[in-house]
């Protein structure tokens, strides 16, 4: 069973090596790529099945006992995120393959497949790393792959965007490394469970400084305001498959890191107020940015920034560790549901934007019009995730928001109420921003050019490509609906995971002594 923990990293890594080796045979490469991701997804499913009841599985790499070697750990939160991200990665891969086969992309497939799998490996490692330095390595793997991906089909604009992206990521990496140095200086270990124990010997104020330091480190990658400016300037410009995956996963990996470090390592009671302030500012500044954008991808990117605020908000509701903390559990549950929801819905919307680009040539709101009559399927596939993003029932976004609002009201206190108020305002503004795309882009009479593009696309290999891409987008929409339908089990797992994150006992026991700890 402990094998399952190592595979989210190892499988895609080997897949990357194989696809790199056979890059001269595109068909084989595609098949290998798909096969790898399918296996990763299946493995993630098994992992979640094992851990859903709160079991924590750990595997000591090399067989060395915990603080010496590196521990890979899967608790319900890790397993859930590994599963959701591999599903999304798999669907986006299908989309990309359809686009390549249809000849609709100028990306470089023989580079894309290996690097994409490396990204998968990096994301997987980040989720299961039980060691702070190994988490850093996981981040670096993910980031390096993302550097390679964001420069696919490099136009001048894309190179500029990649520069912004790369340099900002680098500063976050350097600060991460600095943070590790600080933690090691204070505790003499990098194993996270061990750090958690040893930090008790460190003065509380230093712990808070370190906690806030890591908040900034991951806040940069999670695009928490005011460290978010790079995101809307870089994500929208990458090619579709890349911006979809980046928007869906990369910020979430950082959010995961924030959750993990803030719950496990640092005493949170003193700095929750800081988290709440960050959350409120992030929600509002992000969504105000989204309102004035003239480009679908940029609207979505600003909305992404804004909705990171929701997740930070839920985390900010967690109070004293180990104590009786219903609101904290509710808040973390909300964050977990929100993570899952947002990964799927954000990927879907970017895929839709990619399809819009196929029809219109760009995603500017000034040039798209009447898409609902050009492609009703596309319209439906935009409308449903748009509802979800705006938090309208019965989509997953509603369930997630509901959980967060409940937690906020339960917690009470001026900042929590302010957070709920900001959340409500953000919901309304998201509604305005996202349905503005609908009203301007999907309603109305399509321009001649769009109709002509549509008829041109409905012949030749383009037809296959566009149909395949639409179908995979539909698959992603269906995944989003499945998230909504499965809200019951999802909130249950979320609650289990949240309880465990807050107590941290099963995690520490699994890492330090036993390999499998049942709740």
């Amino acid at each position: 069973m402990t094998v399952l923990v190592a595979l989210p990293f190892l499988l895609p890594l080997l897949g990357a090596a194989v696809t790199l080796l056979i890059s001269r045979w595109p068909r084989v490469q595609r098949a290998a790529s798909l096969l790898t991701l399918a296996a990763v997804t299946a493995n993630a499913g098994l992992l979640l099945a094992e851990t859903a009841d709160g079991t924590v599985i750990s595997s000591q790499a090399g067989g060395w006992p915990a603080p010496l070697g590196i521990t890979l750990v899967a608790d319900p939160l890790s397993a859930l995120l590994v599963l959701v991200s591999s599903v999304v990665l798999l669907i986006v891969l299908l989309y990309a393959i359809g686009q390549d086969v249809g000849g609709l992309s100028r990306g470089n497939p023989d580079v894309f497949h290996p690097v994409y799998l490396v990204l998968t490996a990096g994301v997987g490692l980040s989720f299961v790393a039980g060691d702070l330095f190994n988490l850093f390595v996981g981040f670096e793997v993910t980031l390096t792959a993302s550097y390679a991906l964001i420069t696919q089909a490099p136009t001048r604009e894309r190179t500029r965007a990649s520069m912004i992206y790369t340099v900002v990521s680098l500063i976050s990496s350097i600060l991460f490394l600095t943070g590790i140095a600080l933690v090691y200086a204070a505790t003499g270990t990098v194993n996270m469970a061990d750090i958690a124990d040893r930090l008790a010997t460190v003065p509380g104020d230093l712990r808070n400084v370190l906690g806030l330091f890591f908040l900034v480190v991951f806040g940069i990658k999670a695009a928490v305001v005011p460290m978010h400016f790079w995101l809307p300037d870089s994500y929208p410009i990458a090619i579709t498959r890349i911006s979809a995956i980046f928007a869906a996963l990369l910020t979430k990996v950082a959010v995961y890191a924030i959750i993990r470090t803030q719950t496990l390592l640092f005493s949170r009671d003193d700095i929750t107020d800081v988290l709440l302030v960050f959350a409120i500012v992030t929600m509002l500044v992000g969504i105000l940015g989204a309102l004035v954008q003239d480009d679908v991808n940029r609207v979505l990117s600003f909305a992404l920034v804004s909705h990171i605020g929701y997740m930070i908000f839920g985390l900010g509701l967690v109070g004293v560790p180990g104590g009786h903390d219903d609101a904290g559990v509710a808040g973390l549950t909300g964050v977990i549901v929100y993570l899952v929801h947002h990964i799927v819905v954000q990927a879907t919307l970017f895929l839709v934007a990619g399809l819009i680009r196929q029809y219109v040539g760009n995603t500017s709101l000034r040039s798209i019009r009447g898409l609902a009559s050009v492609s009703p399927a596309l319209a439906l596939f935009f409308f449903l995730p748009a509802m979800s993003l705006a938090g309208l029932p019965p989509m997953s976004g509603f369930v997630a928001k509901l959980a967060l609002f409940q937690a906020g009201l339960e917690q009470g206190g001026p900042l929590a109420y302010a957070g709920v108020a900001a959340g409500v305002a953000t919901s309304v503004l998201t509604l305005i921003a996202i349905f503005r795309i609908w009203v301007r882009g999907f309603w109305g009479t399509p321009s001649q050019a769009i109709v002509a593009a549509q008829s041109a696309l409905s012949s030749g290999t383009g037809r296959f490509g566009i149909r395949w891409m639409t179908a995979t987008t539909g698959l992603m929409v269906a995944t989003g609906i499945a998230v909504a339908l499965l809200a019951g089990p999802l909130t249950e797992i979320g609650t289990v995971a949240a309880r465990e994150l807050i107590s941290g006992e099963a995690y520490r026991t699994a890492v330090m002594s036993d390999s499998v700890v049942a709740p």
Partner: protein
Amino acid sequence: MNTPALVLVITVGVLYGTGFYLLVQRSLMRVVLGILLLGHGSNLALLLTDGGAALPPLLGDAGEGRIADPLPHAMILTAIVITFGVTTFLLALAYRVWLGDENDEVPDDIEDRRIGALAEPEDSA
């Protein structure tokens, strides 16, 4: 535990300060130099957690005195190599930028500039 030697702590500060300063410049080549300095800075910071100058962590030749904590060394090694890989990428990127623009500067985002120049909202829902 021993505090590290003061000169080295100051050096860490200098490396970070200069590294940050180079990082916030528009020339991408300077940014690369900044990353290299910051890499040195973070490596030195990690090194300072090993308890001060000591004998190399090689079993067998343990002579007189304290032996250094090997874990920071291993982490520094990993960090050096990762920084090297990323630096090569950054250089390739600088080259590409230079190909496009005939200089290696980081220009401002066009769309941000356009929106920054708007005086009135373009539409209301």
